[in-house]
C-alpha cells in the first residue's frame, strides 16, 4: 500500500485545491524537484545536456504552452513553429542590442513579445473553429517564417540570414555561446521549465483556467454563463504564446546557438509540438512533460539500440524509428485515446486501490 489517500484530509479549501492533494504525490514531486535541481547538475555531461535534457526541457515548455491553447482552451494551433521563431528572433535582437542585460530578462521579454504576436494571430479564432482554425494558424506559421527570412533587420543584415547567439550571462555565468557548461545551460532551462509549469498549473486551476476549459467544452454555454469568449480565447493565445516564445528563445540561444528560421522553426516544428501535446495528453501539464519526453527520448533510445547495440545501418534504424513511433502512436490511441497522462492517471487509480481492488 504504497499509494493511498486514506488519512489525507484537507481542512481548508486552499489545501484541497493545491496541486498535489495526496501526500504521496506531494513527496514524489518534491523528490523529483530535488533530484532535478540538486543531483542532476552534478552528473550531467555535454551529451546528456545537448542530446537529451535540453531538448526535453525546452520542448516541454513549448508543449505546456501549446497545451494551454489546445488542451485547455480547445483552440487547435499549428502556428507553434512560427511563434517559437518570434521568441527566438526577439531574443536575438535583444541580446545583440542590450549585451549587458541578464539573459533571464531577455528570455522573459522575448516571451512577452511573442504573447503580443500570438494575440494578433489569435483574433481569427473568434470566428473560425476546429480544424478550420488549425489550418488558419498555418497562415501565421508560413507568414512569420517568410517574414524572418525576408526582412534582414531581424538577422542584423548578416550575409546568410542565420542568427548566432553570442555569449550572454546570468549572474556572471555564461548560459549562451560556445563556452557554456552543461550544468549551467541545464539549470537555466530547468528554472524556466519549473516556473512555466507552476504558472501554467496556477492559471489552469483558477478563474482563467476555468473559463478556458468552459470555452473548450462548450463555447456557447460558456458564453451564456458569463465567459467573455474574446477575453478567454485571447488570454489563452497570449499565455500560450508566452510560453512558446520562451521555448523558442531558449531553443535558439541556449540549445542550438545558431538557427535559420525555415529549418529550425518550419512547419515540422509545429507538428512536432502538437504531437507531443496530443500524445502526452490534452489538458494535462504532466502530459506535456510525458509527450515531450516520448518524442525526444524515444528516437534517441531507438537509435542507440539499433545502431550501437545491434549494429544495423543507420538508415534502416531511422526508417524503423518512423515505423515504431507511428505504430506506438496508433497503439497508444487504441489502448488509451487520451494520451500518456490518462494512462498514468489510470495506473494511479489502480495503484490507489492496490492491493485491495474492491
Amino acid at each position, binding site marked *: 500500500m504504497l499509494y493511498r489517500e486514506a488519512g489525507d484530509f484537507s481542512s481548508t479549501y486552499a489545501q484541497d485545491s493545491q496541486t498535489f492533494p495526496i501526500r504521496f504525490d506531494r513527496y514524489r514531486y518534491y523528490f523529483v524537484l530535488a533530484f532535478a535541481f540538486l543531483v542532476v547538475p552534478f552528473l550531467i555531461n555535454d551529451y546528456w545536456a545537448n542530446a537529451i535534457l535540453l531538448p526535453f526541457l525546452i520542448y516541454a515548455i513549448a508543449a505546456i504552452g501549446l497545451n494551454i491553447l489546445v488542451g485547455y482552451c480547445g483552440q487547435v494551433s499549428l502556428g507553434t513553429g512560427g511563434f517559437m521563431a518570434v521568441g527566438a528572433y526577439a531574443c536575438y535582437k535583444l541580446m545583440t542590442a542590450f549585451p549587458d542585460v541578464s539573459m533571464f530578462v531577455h528570455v522573459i521579454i522575448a516571451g512577452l513579445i511573442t504573447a503580443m504576436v500570438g494575440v494578433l494571430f489569435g483574433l481569427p479564432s473568434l470566428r473560425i473553429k476546429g480544424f478550420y482554425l488549425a489550418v488558419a494558424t498555418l497562415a501565421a506559421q508560413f507568414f512569420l517564417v517568410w517574414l524572418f527570412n525576408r526582412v534582414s533587420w531581424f538577422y542584423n543584415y548578416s550575409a*546568410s540570414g542565420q542568427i548566432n547567439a553570442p555569449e550572454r550571462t546570468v549572474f556572471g555565468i555564461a548560459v549562451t555561446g560556445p563556452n557554456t557548461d552543461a550544468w549551467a545551460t541545464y539549470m537555466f532551462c530547468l528554472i524556466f521549465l519549473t516556473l512555466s509549469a507552476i504558472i501554467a498549473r496556477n492559471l489552469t486551476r483558477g478563474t482563467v483556467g476555468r473559463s478556458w476549459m468552459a470555452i473548450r467544452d462548450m463555447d456557447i454555454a460558456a458564453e451564456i454563463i458569463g465567459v467573455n469568449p474574446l477575453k478567454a480565447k485571447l488570454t489563452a493565445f497570449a499565455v500560450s504564446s508566452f510560453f512558446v516564445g520562451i521555448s523558442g528563445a531558449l531553443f535558439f540561444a541556449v540549445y542550438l546557438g545558431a538557427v535559420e528560421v525555415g529549418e529550425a522553426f518550419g512547419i515540422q516544428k509545429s507538428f512536432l509540438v502538437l504531437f507531443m501535446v496530443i500524445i502526452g495528453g490534452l489538458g494535462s501539464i504532466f502530459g506535456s512533460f510525458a509527450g515531450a519526453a516520448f518524442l525526444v527520448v524515444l528516437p534517441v533510445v531507438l537509435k542507440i539500440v539499433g545502431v550501437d547495440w545491434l549494429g544495423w545501418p543507420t538508415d534502416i*534504424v531511422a526508417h524503423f524509428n518512423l515505423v515504431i513511433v507511428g505504430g506506438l502512436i496508433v497503439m497508444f490511441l487504441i489502448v488509451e485515446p487520451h494520451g500518456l497522462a490518462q494512462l498514468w492517471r489510470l495506473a494511479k487509480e489502480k495503484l490507489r486501490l492496490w492491493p485491495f481492488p474492491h
Partner: protein
Amino acid sequence: MKYKLGTMAIAAIMAAGPVMADLVFPSLSYRTGPYAAGGIPFADGYQDYFTMINARDGGIGGVMTRVVECETGYNTEKGVECYEATKGEGSLVYQPLSTGITYQLIPKTTADNIPMHTMGYGRTSAANGDVFSHTFNYPANYWNGASGAIKYLLDENGGDLSGKKIALVYHNSAYGKEPIRTLEELSKKHGFELSLLPVDHPGQEQKSQWLQIRRDRPDNVIMYGWGVMNQVAVQEAANIRFPMENFIGIWWSGSENDVLAAGAAADGYKALTFHNVGSDFPVFDDIQQYVVDAGEAAGAGDQIGTVLYNRGLYAAMLAAEAARTAQGIHGVADITPAMMRDGMEALEITEARMTELGMPNFGPAFKVSCENHGGPGLVGMTQWDADTKTWSMISDFGPSDMEVIQPLIDEDSAAYAAENNIASNC
C-alpha cells in the same frame, strides 16, 4: 570491440570515453528525410574511401581508420545529438553536410578543439582562418561558385557581360541567399543586370518563377538549389524551352538526381564543381577490388561513380591527407583532433600527390594556410549529357575573382569576430 554508446548513455557518470587506437572519422550522413537522395551517395563515397584505405594501406600511417556514421536526416537537432554522441570517441574532423548544422557547430567545435570541414557549403566567411580557427572550407565555397559561374560566362562572351541579363534562382534559405552579395558586386563590376528569384522550400511548385523567366528572357540563369527544387527547376526550364547550356547550377544542383527526372530535355545543363566527375580514375579500381568485391560497400553499393559519391570520396581523401600531414607534423601516428586541425591548416594537395593516390586531376591543386582556410577557390564546369547519362568536365579548375570575394569574406568574418569577441588566431 565495438564501443557501445548505449553503455555510455546508461552510465553517463563514467562518461569519459576510453582512448581508442584508431582514427575516428564521424560521418554525419542523411540517408533519410527530404534530401536523402543527395545524402546517400556522399555518405557511401566517404565511407568507401576509408574502407579502401584500411584494406589497401592498413589505415593511415599504420593506424586503422574507423568511420562512425550517424544519421542526421538533415535535421539540425539530430545533428547536435550526433555531434555530442560521437565527439567523445576522439572524432578527428566533422563534416556536417548541412549549412544549418555547420552554423551551430562552428562555436561548439571551436570550444571543443575539434576541426570541421565544410567542403563547398556552410559559412563562406569561415575561409578567414584568422577568425574561424577550427572551420575549413577548402577547396571552394559558395562565393567562389558564384564568381566561377560569372567568370565562365565572361569567357563565353569574350570577356564582356555588359547589358546581359542574368537571373539567380535560389533556395529561399541561408544557403540560397549566400551568393547574392557576390553576384551584386560582380554585376556592378561587369555591368550585367541581375534579377533574383527565390523559391521556397521544398520547391515542388516553381511555375511563377519560370513564367517570369520566360517573360524576362534572361541570357543566363544561375541556380542555387537543393533537393526536389533542382529536379523541378530543370524540368520547368526544359518546359519553357530555356536553352540548357545557358543554365548553370551550383555544385549542389549538379548531380545525376537533378537531371534524370527531366530525361532528354535536360541535355546540356551545366553545373559548377570543385572536383572531377565520372569513374575514370585508377582509384575506382582499388575501390572495386578492396571494397566492392570484398562485399564491404557502404549502403546499397549502387552509387559508385556518381557526382555526389565522388564528392564523398574527395572529402574523405582530403581528410585522410590532412591526417597524414598531421602525423608528419606531430610525429605521432595516433593523432588527436587538435593535431588534425594543424594537419588541415598545413594541408597541401599537389597534382603529383593526387596521381599517387590514383586520383589525377580529381580536384584542384591547392594549399591551406592559417589565414586562408578556404584554399584558392578554384572551380570548374561540368555538363550533362542526357544520351550517355553522364556528367563531364568541360573546363579546367580556374580561379575565381578573389578581388571581389576577399573583401566580402573580411567584412562578414569581422562582424562575426566582433559579435563574439574572437581574438586573432594567426
